[in-house]
């Protein structure tokens, strides 16, 4: 059994969380640069220019890209032959998140659902982190991380379609969600689509789909073609950067598909704003 020290895990995750708040990853930067080159609207182009300027400034001066520094979302694959000594993986990730958000001058954005008071003093600064665990073969721990803002999360939707609605039904649902969202999720956006599984599996898949590098093809050729088809459809909506009208609304569409019940076709759409702050480490 391979061993990883708790403190080492905290250190690695903390560094990743702090860095991600101010450094837009290469895939998102490239996708926005491409949108800037292709955009037909002058107004939208100037917005995209501001977004790129902001990304460069944030990285140079180590400032948060956006004031909504998000909830800290993790997908963690834990190998069956690795053990963390000196504490739990969950505690390590929460500790790393709290320290990174405090020391990085990031915003604490977790609150009570009903009375809306900030939970920073009782649960912890921007805690709890949202952590999805998976147990896999091997002796590694793989951690995917994203700082997920509220604006794009607010327009995300899930449904269960009738199987007969098929791919056309999925496409129409996604189109409706993005059309209704309009300027609100800070376009240009990345659209994560989870298909199949049960209700919650579709939702979780749609979130995980956002972690894929924008611009990389889907390994499944059928899904890859479907992603391209949906992207083209969505860009016809004319929403444009920050909703001011334009040809470049969607930077990428990512789909994850799961086997589902013979009676159901669950579909979930999770939207990611242009500030696609994500990162991953393997320990």
């Amino acid at each position: 059994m391979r061993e990883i020290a708790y403190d080492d895990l905290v250190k690695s995750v903390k560094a990743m969380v702090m860095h991600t708040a101010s450094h837009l990853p290469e895939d998102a930067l490239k996708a926005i640069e491409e949108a800037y080159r292709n955009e037909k609207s002058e107004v939208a182009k100037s917005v995209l220019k501001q977004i790129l300027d902001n990304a460069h400034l944030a990285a140079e001066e180590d400032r948060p890209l956006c004031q909504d520094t998000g909830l800290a979302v993790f997908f963690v694959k834990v190998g069956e032959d690795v053990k963390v000594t000196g504490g739990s993986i969950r505690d390590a990730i929460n500790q790393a998140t709290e320290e990174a958000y405090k020391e990085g001058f990031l915003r604490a954005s977790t609150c009570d659902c009903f009375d809306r008071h900030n939970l920073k003093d009782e649960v912890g600064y921007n805690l709890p982190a949202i952590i999805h665990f998976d147990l896999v073969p091997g002796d590694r721990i793989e951690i995917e991380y994203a700082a997920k803002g509220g604006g794009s999360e607010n327009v995300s939707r899930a449904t269960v379609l009738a199987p007969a609605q098929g791919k056309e039904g999925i496409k129409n649902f996604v189109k409706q969600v993005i059309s209704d969202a309009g300027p609100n999720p800070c376009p240009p956006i990345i659209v994560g689509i989870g298909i199949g599984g049960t209700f919650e599996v579709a939702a979780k898949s749609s979130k995980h789909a956002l972690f894929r590098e924008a611009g990389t093809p889907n390994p499944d050729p059928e899904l890859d073609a479907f992603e391209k088809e949906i992207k083209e459809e969505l860009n016809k909506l004319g929403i444009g950067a920050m909703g001011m009208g334009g040809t470049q609304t969607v930077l990428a569409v990512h789909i994850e598909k799961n086997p589902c019940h013979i009676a159901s076709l669950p579909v979930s759409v999770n939207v990611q704003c242009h500030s696609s702050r994500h990162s991953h480490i393997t320990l």
Partner: protein
Amino acid sequence: MAEYHMTTPLSDEDVSKLQAGDIVYLSGTIYTARDAAHKRLVDLIEKGEQLPFDLKGSVIYFVGPTPPKPGEPIGSAGPTTSYRMDSYSPILIEHGQKGMIGKGKRNQAVKDACKKYKAVYFGATGGAGALIAKSIKKAEVIAYPELGPEAIRRLEVENFPVTVINDTHGNDLYEMGRAKYEVKD
């Protein structure tokens, strides 16, 4: 579309000449408020009590900034989604507010209030919080410090770049822009 440099407080004449799509560089004093602070402001108006700042000609920025680094006035400070303020904005506009800065769609009641009482809704670029912070020269919490990032702050801004989304004539840049680029099959 035109470009203007304007200094707060804004007058009826200032806002009336603006058209959806115009770019405005704002300077002067503006105030921050999100949902929780808006609720308190409206409660004060309903009780007939004094507000923590003068609404007349005011511009309110919908923002919950990150904490400032030592020696800096404010952290990253981009706009938050505005619809959460839709139920409060018309009351503030009726009482003299002239400008709102945020991002995302407003409801009909806000657009109607903009027309009736002469006010404008400006859009700032969401997710450009580091860049926007550069135009904020001073920040001071003036009310509700217990709300943390949602407290009301008085900001001194210089050439804060915004785009007119809803003007006093009933135009909506989101609808106009989208209609122009929408491809119908």
